[in-house]
C-alpha cells in the first residue's frame, strides 16, 4: 500500500513537472522532451489504474511515434527560442494563468464536493484480466466495432491530408531549391519581407494586404 502511494506521488510529480516544462521552456525542442517525460509518467499512472494495455500504447504510440514526428518537425522548422512577449501584451499574458487557476479551482470544487461516494474509495473490485490486451481487444472487436472502424478511417484520412498539406507545390519549387542550397539562412524565423510568386503567379507578401473595398 505504501509502495502504491510512493509510486503515485512520484509519477504525479513527474507528470506535473513535465507539463510545466512544456509550458515554461522557451525552446520548442526542450518542450517536446519535457512532454516525453510527462507521457512516460502518465503511463506509470495508467499502470497504477490497472490499464496495462493503455500504458503500453501510451509509451509506444505517443512517446515513441508522435514525439518523433514532433522532433522532426521542430528540427525542420528550426527550434529557435521564442521571443519574449512584448510589454503591451502583459494583460493578455496574465489572463491565461488566471483563467487556468479559476478552472482548476472550479473542477476541484466540482469533484471533491460531488455526491459520488465511490470517489473516496479505491474503486470496484476488478478481475485479474482487467485492462489487459485480450480484454481490450475483445471489446474493440465486439462492443466497439463501429468506433474501431471509424478510427481506422480517421487515421487514413489524416495520413492523406498530411501528404496533401505538406507536398511540394509547383510555384514553390524554386524557393524550396533555394532552401536546400542555403540551409543556414532561413534557420530561425522565416523571412517575410520579400515578395514571392505563389502558385497563381501573384506576388506574395508576409503581412496581410488590405482588401480592396467593394
Amino acid at each position, binding site marked *: 500500500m505504501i509502495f502504491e502511494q510512493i509510486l503515485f506521488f512520484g509519477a504525479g510529480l513527474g507528470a506535473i513537472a513535465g507539463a510545466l516544462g512544456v509550458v515554461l521552456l522557451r525552446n520548442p525542442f526542450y518542450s517536446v522532451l519535457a512532454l516525453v517525460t*510527462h507521457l512516460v509518467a502518465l503511463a506509470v499512472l495508467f499502470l497504477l489504474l*490497472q490499464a496495462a494495455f493503455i500504458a503500453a500504447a501510451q509509451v509506444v504510440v505517443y512517446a515513441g511515434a508522435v514525439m518523433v514526428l514532433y522532433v522532426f518537425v521542430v528540427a525542420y522548422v528550426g527550434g529557435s527560442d521564442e521571443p519574449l512577449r512584448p510589454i503591451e501584451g502583459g494583460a493578455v499574458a496574465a489572463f491565461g494563468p488566471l483563467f487556468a487557476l479559476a478552472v482548476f479551482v472550479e473542477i476541484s470544487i466540482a469533484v471533491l464536493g460531488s455526491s459520488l461516494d465511490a470517489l473516496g474509495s479505491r474503486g470496484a473490485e476488478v478481475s485479474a484480466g482487467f485492462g489487459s490486451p485480450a480484454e481490450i481487444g475483445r471489446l474493440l472487436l465486439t462492443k466497439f466495432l463501429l468506433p474501431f472502424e471509424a478510427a481506422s478511417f480517421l487515421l487514413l484520412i489524416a495520413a492523406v491530408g498530411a501528404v496533401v498539406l505538406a507536398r511540394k507545390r509547383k510555384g514553390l519549387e524554386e524557393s524550396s531549391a533555394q532552401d536546400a542550397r542555403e540551409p543556414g539562412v532561413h534557420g530561425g524565423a522565416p523571412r517575410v519581407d520579400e515578395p514571392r510568386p505563389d502558385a497563381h503567379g501573384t506576388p506574395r507578401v508576409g503581412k496581410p494586404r488590405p482588401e480592396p473595398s467593394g
Partner: protein
Amino acid sequence: MDTSWFVVLSAFIFCIGAAGVMTRRSPLVVLLCLELMLNAGNLALIAFSRMLGNQDGQVFALIVMVVAACEVVIGLGIIVAMFRRRLPIDVDEMSELRG
C-alpha cells in the same frame, strides 16, 4: 489510492495545458499543450473506468489517442506548409486561413 487523487491531478494537468494554449505563441508549442489537455482527459477517463470496474472508459481513452494522433499529423502538416510558404510561425500573426 483514492480515485479523487487521480481526478484532481488530471484537472491540474488540464489547467496547465489550458494556460499554455493561451500564453504561448509558437503553434508547435500550442499543439504540445493541446496534447497535455487530451492526456489529462485520458487520465480522468481511466481513473473513472477503474472506479466503476468497467473497461469502456479505457476503450474511449484509446480512441482519444487515435484522434490526438490525427490532430498532430494535420497540425504539423499545416506548420510545415506555413514554413514552406515563408509565413511567420506565430499564432498572433496567423489569424486568418488564407495563405
